[in-house]
């Protein structure tokens, strides 16, 4: 078994640098790589291009990197919960590339799978199509979209083992699964790090080959963005 285990978040982030392109898993604040993000804030590197479905909130998630102006460009599908984001975008401090969520997911998956480009109908006829090749398949117009290229992917799983195998929980799987192996180096942080052999080979969501480094996150806040409940009667 090839071990991917590193002891600390700082070891896990060895090699990150200014002006790199990073992928971040998570949907809203659910399933985000809390420990990796905190460490990136500590390291203070800047000029980052971040591929992430959302941009966190003002005081959590990628919002923390935005507050420190570490991010040069965001590639996202929805960024609506973040005032600082909006301010930086409208002032021109922050470049923003908004792309359809399914295209975002598929461009990650394409990078993971060695598919350099694919066609999707999403965005045809809209400003998203600007500068893109379009083509008719089966009487319907499609856009050609490219696989992402990134230096690091930061993902968060529920359980992992030393071999880098990952199991996610609930809807926290989201982009985390598709970003594994989609960057040069995939760093996975987990709530539970198990010895090899503890996870059922039949129930691995992401095989360890897609993960270069794995560590147990020191702490998870797992903040809920929209707490909605029903009454018991």
């Amino acid at each position: 078994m090839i071990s991917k285990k590193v002891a600390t978040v700082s070891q896990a982030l060895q090699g990150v640098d200014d002006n790199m392109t990073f992928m971040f898993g998570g949907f809203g604040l659910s399933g985000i790589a809390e420990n990796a993000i905190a460490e990136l804030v500590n390291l203070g590197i800047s000029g980052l291009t971040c591929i992430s479905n959302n941009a966190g909130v003002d005081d959590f998630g990628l919002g923390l990197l935005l507050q420190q102006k570490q991010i040069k460009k965001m590639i996202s599908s929805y960024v609506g919960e973040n005032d600082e984001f909006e301010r930086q975008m409208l002032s021109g401090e922050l470049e923003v590339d908004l792309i359809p969520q399914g295209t975002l997911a598929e461009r990650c998956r394409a990078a993971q799978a060695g598919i350099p480009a694919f066609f999707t109908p999403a965005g045809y006829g809209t400003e998203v199509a600007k500068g893109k090749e379009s083509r008719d398949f089966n009487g319907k117009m499609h856009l050609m979209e490219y696989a992402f290229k990134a230096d690091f992917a930061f993902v968060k799983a529920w359980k992992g083992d030393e071999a880098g195998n990952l199991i996610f929980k609930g809807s926290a799987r989201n982009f985390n699964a598709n970003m594994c192996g989609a960057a040069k180096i995939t760093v996975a942080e987990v709530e539970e790090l198990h010895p090899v052999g503890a996870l059922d080979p039949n129930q691995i969501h992401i095989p360890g080959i897609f993960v270069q480094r794995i560590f147990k996150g020191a702490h998870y806040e797992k903040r809920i963005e929209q707490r909605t409940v029903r009454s018991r009667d």
Partner: protein
Amino acid sequence: MLDKNGIAKRIAQEVQDGYYVNLGIGIPTLVANYVREDIEVEFQSENGVLGMGPFPYEGEEDPDVINAGKQTITTLPGASFFDSATSFSMIRGQHVDLTILGAMEVAENGDIANWKIPGKMVKGMGGAMDLVASAENIIVAMMHTNRAGESKLLPNCSLPLTGVSCVKKIVTNLAVIEVTDQGFKLLERAPGVSVEMIKKATAGHLIVEGDIPEMTL
């Protein structure tokens, strides 16, 4: 005239037995409350859930189980979780039978704008562009006019498009409208609303043929 819940109630009548349904944020979310109890429907959330249930009881919220609106939810028996690429395989691959979403503007030809007001609101399209580009069956849930009283049913959209020629049906506080090759075709009036009122509130070409029945809710 309908309120938001009324719109949701009317749209719920369009949901058929065996449908997989994706509900957008806002009025569409309310549709789940009004689906007939004698049919089987499953709700898909594009962040990776099939078989969504009601909100959790207080104290049972799980940060790892949310919907596309980032709300805490529960799942029903038979549910499944999956990654984002698989979720959009369901959507892009037309495995989802019905998409219900809100709109800022809809054009006569079925174009829809619902994601951006240049210079004002730039939150992003989320999954909306994938949904409208792929779904065979799209119903728009919205108020007939905006806050300034201007029609949201237009000859052409003025805002940046989300998708082209994709909307099939519109349910507003005033009417049920089908999008046809000839334009907006009036199918039903909301209770107490006259054809004249609907005409006035519709900037795009409105086709009125014969007697227009009032909705049954």
